[in-house]
């Protein structure tokens, strides 16, 4: 149950943090249609995050931060708003704030391709709750991937400027890709126990899918070094980028000011 809870936090935090980043596009997107689409993606991921955090709390209540007596804060919110950055288990790919739409398209393509491959396998999880979450998520994330792939092609083949920005964005995102497939002991245990997926099992599939999008767009893989771990750990161990702490300062400010609040 501890491994199940941590595994759910990993998948849930990926969704939660990335949803937050995408939600920052609201009222800032290049066009109304994209404002709506990005909000949709953020909403889908937020929904997945809520189910996954709730599953984590149910599997092992000890992962939920303890709040003052009488606090009506539900477990999903205690997890989202009362953990410090070191308690988050997401990969670092989802943390940075994007400087422009080019970075967003590149990041979403990589993230959605990876997550879709995971969720497809996770539909046959031994944990029926996880399997159900995955089944719902597959439909959503397939759309996210298509949206990103469509824009990837458009920006790559649009104007010189759009191509330049897309390539710059891809170069920024690409180094964070390796971490996705670097199996964490909890992921290994989750796969071993039949409720999770070892991400190393999807590395080739993701690679082929990304290669297809890149090649149809006429884009080469960036020649950049992967971002290494921090000492012996990375995002899944709670070792994050500087961006996460700043993000949480904003995300958690109201909730933390009112630990006994009802919302």
């Amino acid at each position, binding site marked *: 149950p501890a491994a199940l809870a941590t595994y759910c936090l990993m998948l849930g935090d990926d969704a939660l943090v990335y949803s937050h980043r995408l939600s920052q596009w609201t009222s800032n997107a*290049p066009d109304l249609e994209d404002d709506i689409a990005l909000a949709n993606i953020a909403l889908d991921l937020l929904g997945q995050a809520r189910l996954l955090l709730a599953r984590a709390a149910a599997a092992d209540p000890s992962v939920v931060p303890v709040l003052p007596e009488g606090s009506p804060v539900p477990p999903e919110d205690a997890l989202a708003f009362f953990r410090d950055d070191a308690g988050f288990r997401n990969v670092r790919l989802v943390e940075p704030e994007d400087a422009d739409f080019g970075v967003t398209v590149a990041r979403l393509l990589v993230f959605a391709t990876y997550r879709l491959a995971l969720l497809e396998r996770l539909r046959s999880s031994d944990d029926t709750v996880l399997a159900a979450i995955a089944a719902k998520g597959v439909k959503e994330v397939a759309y996210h991937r298509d949206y990103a792939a469509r824009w990837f092609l458009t920006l790559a083949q649009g104007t010189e400027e759009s191509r330049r920005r897309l390539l710059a964005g891809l170069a920024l995102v690409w180094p964070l890709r390796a971490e996705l497939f670097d199996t964490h002991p909890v992921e290994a245990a989750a796969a071993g126990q039949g409720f999770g997926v070892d991400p190393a099992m999807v590395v080739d599939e993701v690679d082929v899918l990304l290669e297809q999008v890149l090649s149809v767009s006429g884009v080469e893989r960036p020649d950049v070094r992967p971002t290494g771990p921090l000492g012996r750990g990375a995002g899944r161990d709670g070792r994050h980028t500087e961006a996460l702490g700043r993000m949480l300062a904003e995300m958690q400010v109201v909730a933390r000011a009112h630990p006994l609040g009802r919302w």
Partner: protein
Amino acid sequence: AELLAAFDATIARHDRIEPRDWMPEKYRSTLVRQIAQHAHSEIIGMQPEGNWITRAPSLRRKAILLAKVQDEAGHGLYLYSACETLGVSRQELTLKLVEGRQKYSSIFNYPTLSYADVGTIGWLVDGAAICNQVPLCRTSYGPYGRAMIRVCKEESFHQRQGFELLSTMMRGTDEQRAMVQESVDRFWWPALMMFGPPDDDSPNTEQSMAWGIKRDTNDELRQKFVDMSVPQAEALGVTLPDDGLVWNAERGHHDFSQPDWDEFYAVVKGSGPCNAQRIAHRRRAHEDGAWVRDAATAFARRQQETVQRGSAS
């Protein structure tokens, strides 16, 4: 003259004018101005609430808020489409907005300063908007009326969500209750101003009513809103910040004080607390997105050329 007679007859029947129908130029331009303002209001209206998406204090509230602001973008989209049926493009209207040549609802020139404002905007601002808009579902121009039906349905839902947020907060801590009251104190008067100036100072009302673009006067709608809000405020346990607010049994309505109309005109003219900020935000987003829209246009053109070359060969 024949065309005008047909138009007048349609209006008299309370039937709908459709895009292909002939219409007087003044009717068309009045509609364009009104629908565009309405569309702009939805788009600018994303900002004050959007300000709290990244700080929503629970995941459920974050989902509700994000979905709501997304709905506003959707409303903007259909309203711009309704304008396009009258021959004016979204691009053109957006330029008018960011250059300050077209207005949007002044309520969005007030800042959101606490999470309670998300609830208050839902309850009072969406509530006032609904009072204004429900009659527009029966408006004479077809595409506008149909857009309004969808908008109103979603806004009622938003209004209930806003009320529900406030009522949950009122069952929370003392600090939360104070936050709700402070928010209502700030938004009550601007909400009353949403119905526009008193009828005596509202020169366009008569023509708009004759054309069936508008169906009630400003003061009628304002009264309706006050009468509707008083029992809701009681149910919440908040005090509306008006000493003059009392039930008048004779009229069967609440008496209430007038908002500060000098403030109203100042805000309309551009001196609200957030006018400059809202326009600057919209302009920045529009300019920052230009390269993406250009890329999409260039890509579409290239695709089309490829297809044409293909069919020509």
